């Protein structure tokens, strides 16, 4: 039973590691979905003679070729998995939980139960999402943006009240049981066989109830998708409340706000964004679910036909653009939720391996504050051509242009941090440098999209696909790789292999650019995203060879992750034992805590005397001066 106590622990370090493993598993899934898409896009026709290997036969596709509805489901799931179950859980969930208390000198988070609950609820949300493809109505089809009325239609042959097949039911039941076990074990923390059986019984009962409710709400892939986003939204808000309270209330003595490491600042701002924006998404998802069940018509107009049939039960009067406003009011701030923590962690890592204080620490904090604030005023730049008043676009174009100013400040300060440093090229450092370079490309392509006239040509083309992948893969994912290489010793007490790390980095960096840079050209030509096949269209036909090149590169990028997997799993077992501070870092998690940290995090209550980036301070002989060291 102690094994259950360990798995369902409320300790912030366990929760963080739980998020890490879950996020990496989902990353493998999302990457696999991307491979399926890329294979199809390179050889979209049966006559190409390149049927999908293995998967085509397994799924019994005609000619081994992915059908269009499966393609739509694949990109919808790829985006949803990557955004809601990889990047946000890894950045905010894994590193937020693990790092915040350690970096601010706290022994725990403010609400440990809430932290654990958010992890297990995220797992349940993920299972609800993955149950979708197994439901009678088929997988989600409306993209990760889920625009109604397309998303308000029903999957073929499904209707509310249908019972689920055994596979999705079992998937959701397992996650629900885990959530139940977490709650019962921590609410009635008693040991012994008898109480364990009681706890298990209560959890089973609760799981049974949850599965029944979920089955009733979600009857096809699309409604499962809505429900999944509702649940994952609740989970991230739980996490955000926990981080905010922890940072505001549990800082150790001497840890003033302007002595907080930038990673903690960035997680603070990300938590504010989550707290203020996510309820809007949750509201939109509830409205969509109600529309889906035909008990309301928030987004459905009168005289609406679906599949050429009238729907007398839809009262009408709804407006599809309302969903877009609500969705982007969440989803644009969500982009900053996905990039701010990476900003913060990369700032930490650049400073450590340049052996130099972060350049313009306060400017970095103010820039993040400005991004957080402005982040709430740019959402409609996703909607310039949506049919909203085009002149309203001007407002959002200008606010979007100006959010580039604080982003620019951050980039220039990173350059300032590197300049004059004593740069050590570790795997973590390479990834952090790549983050800066790739984020610059993603940021600059954003200026094209912010300009309303240019956007009219580029909107919903591959240019947007290139842009978001430069920001979210080139930015967030490379930032995450840097963070994993950097904090792995603290998390697991062992070092990762540097050589494998560098192989992984260089292969990924080159392949990444070969995959996503050409997409700018596809977009410039006007090739639409979410398109099953361009090879029949006269205007785009000649670009098909470029698609094949992108696919080759995508598979190289996929294969380039193998060294990372080997390194990660191998280092867990065979990695060199880490000392408490292998990188000579100044911040609290390295100086006052063992690797991996004890239950209480610190042996003695932490005490802080100075800012977080005192590298090469002339007061001391070594090239770093920890925050907690007292100098007479």
């Amino acid at each position, binding site marked *: 039973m102690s094994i259950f106590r360990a798995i369902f622990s409320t300790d912030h370090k366990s929760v963080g590691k739980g998020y890490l493993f879950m996020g990496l598993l989902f990353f493998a899934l999302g990457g696999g979905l991307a491979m399926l898409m890329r294979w199809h896009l390179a050889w979209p026709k049966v006559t190409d003679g390149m049927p999908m290997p293995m998967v085509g036969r397994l799924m019994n596709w005609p000619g081994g070729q992915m059908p269009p509805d499966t393609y739509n489901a694949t990109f919808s799931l790829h985006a949803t998995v990557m955004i809601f179950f990889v990047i946000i859980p890894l950045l905010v969930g894994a590193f937020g939980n693990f790092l915040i208390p350690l970096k601010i000198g706290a022994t725990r988070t403010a609400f440990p139960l809430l932290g654990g609950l958010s992890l297990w609820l995220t797992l349940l949300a993920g299972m609800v999402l993955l149950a979708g493809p197994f439901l009678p109505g088929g997988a989600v089809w409306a993209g990760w943006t889920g625009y109604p009325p*397309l998303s308000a239609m029903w999957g073929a042959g499904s209707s509310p009240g249908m019972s689920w097949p055994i596979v999705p039911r079992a998937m959701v039941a397992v996650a629900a049981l885990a959530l139940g076990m977490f709650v019962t074990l921590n609410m009635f923390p008693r040991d012994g066989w008898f109480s364990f059986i009681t706890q298990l019984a209560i959890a089973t009962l609760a799981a049974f109830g949850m599965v029944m409710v979920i089955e009733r709400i979600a009857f096809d892939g699309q409604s499962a998708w809505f429900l999944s986003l509702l649940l994952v939204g609740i989970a991230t808000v739980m996490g955000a409340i926990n981080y905010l309270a922890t940072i505001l209330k549990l800082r150790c003595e001497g840890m003033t706000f302007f002595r907080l490491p930038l990673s903690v600042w960035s997680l603070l701002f990300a938590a504010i964004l989550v707290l203020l924006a996510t309820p809007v998404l949750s509201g939109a998802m509830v409205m969509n679910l109600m529309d889906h069940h035909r008990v309301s018509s928030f987004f459905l107009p009168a005289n609406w036909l679906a599949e050429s049939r009238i729907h007398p039960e839809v009262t009408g009067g709804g407006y599809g653009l309302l969903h877009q406003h609500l969705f982007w009011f969440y989803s644009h701030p969500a982009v900053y939720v996905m990039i701010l923590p990476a900003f913060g962690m990369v700032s930490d890592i650049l400073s450590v391996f340049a052996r130099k204080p972060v350049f313009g620490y306060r400017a970095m904090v103010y820039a993040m504050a400005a991004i957080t604030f402005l982040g709430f005023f740019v959402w409609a730049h996703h909607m310039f051509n949506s049919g909203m008043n085009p002149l309203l676009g001007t407002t959002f174009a200008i606010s979007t242009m100006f959010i580039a100013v604080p982003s620019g400040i951050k980039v220039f*300060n990173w350059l300032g941090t*590197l300049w004059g440093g004593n740069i050590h090229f570790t795997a973590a450092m390479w990834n952090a440098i790549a983050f800066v370079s790739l984020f610059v490309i993603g940021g600059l392509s954003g200026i094209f999209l912010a300009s*309303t006239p240019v956007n009219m*040509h580029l909107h*919903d083309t591959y240019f947007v696909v290139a842009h978001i992948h430069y920001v979210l893969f080139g930015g967030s994912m490379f930032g995450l790789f840097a963070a994993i290489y950097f904090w792995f010793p603290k998390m697991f007490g062992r070092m990762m292999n540097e050589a494998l790390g560098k192989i992984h980095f260089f292969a990924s960096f080159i392949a990444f650019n070969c995959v996503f840079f050409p997409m700018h050209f596809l977009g410039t030509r006007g090739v*639409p995203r979410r398109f099953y096949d361009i090879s029949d269209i006269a205007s785009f036909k000649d670009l098909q060879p470029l698609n094949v090149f992108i696919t080759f590169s995508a598979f190289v990028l996929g294969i380039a992750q193998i060294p990372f997997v080997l390194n990660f799993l191998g280092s867990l077992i065979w990695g060199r034992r880490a000392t408490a501070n292998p990188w000579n870092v100044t911040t609290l998690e390295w100086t006052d805590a063992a690797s991996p940290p004890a239950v209480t995090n610190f042996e003695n209550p932490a005490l802080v005397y100075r800012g977080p980036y005192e590298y090469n301070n002339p007061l001391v002989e070594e090239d770093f001066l920890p925050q907690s060291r007292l100098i007479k």
Partner: protein
Amino acid sequence: MKWDVAPILASSWWLPANHSEHGSGFDGLFTLILWITVGIFVLIHIVLLTSLIRHRNRPGRTKAWFIHGNNRLEIFWTIIPAIILTVVSLLSTRVWQSYHAMRDIGQPDAVRVLVIGQQFKWNVIYPGPDGQLGRYLLYPSTTDERWPDGQRFRGSNGPAALPQEKREEAINAYIEQINPLGKDLTDPLGTDDDWRNALARDLVVPVGRRVEVYLASRDVIHDFAVPLMRVKMDTIPGTIGLLTFMPTKISADEPGGAYDIVCEELCGTGHYTMRGRLVVVDNAAYERAEHVMVTP
């Protein structure tokens, strides 16, 4: 599997040709932003690479500089990008406003056309000689006493006269057979509209005249995009959008004799098959064309 670099390099990677009046301004802005961003990219990467090479850890280099920042530099790299972005914003706004100045409705020589999206085809409706469009997308409801065309359908004067369980099916059949676009047959403006063969036909417009495309949808959101005209707008069910442009070149030279209309908003399984043809003809040919003369 053959692998050849030549066809990749042979394909054009630049903006497609522009055949609209406003498009040159859009493309100019694109090029301007491209030069600015390329400049910034190169500058940043020169500094980055120099720093990585010059300030790398190597034998003899043990110390880094100990500085926490420089307020003058901060002000410098806040203000310079702000100025550049202000200029880009102002230029964007100017181009955008001058494009939308075209929207002033009621110009006498403008050509109007209603485009209704449905899964996965475009309907093209011409206004007829009066140049005015009628009302569309109004479908019978189960409580209506009369069918919209005033005729008997399935042996009844209206859906309400049918037994409860047959009404919905009868309306669906009526929509499919008689009035797929929900035309309001009582609207006097629409009596001369050319709407009967609207499904999946060419959108024919004259060169050198302003085209007002009114956009609507029967079922889900579609997107009416013509890359070579630099226009793009979603069709929202329940509302009517307006998109304007002025073609500057007839489409006879294009492959297939038409510009591609592409749906650029995910609209379902057949999204990728939803294409239309924009045929631009000279004015004389347009005046002769059947759809301008047609009477119901």
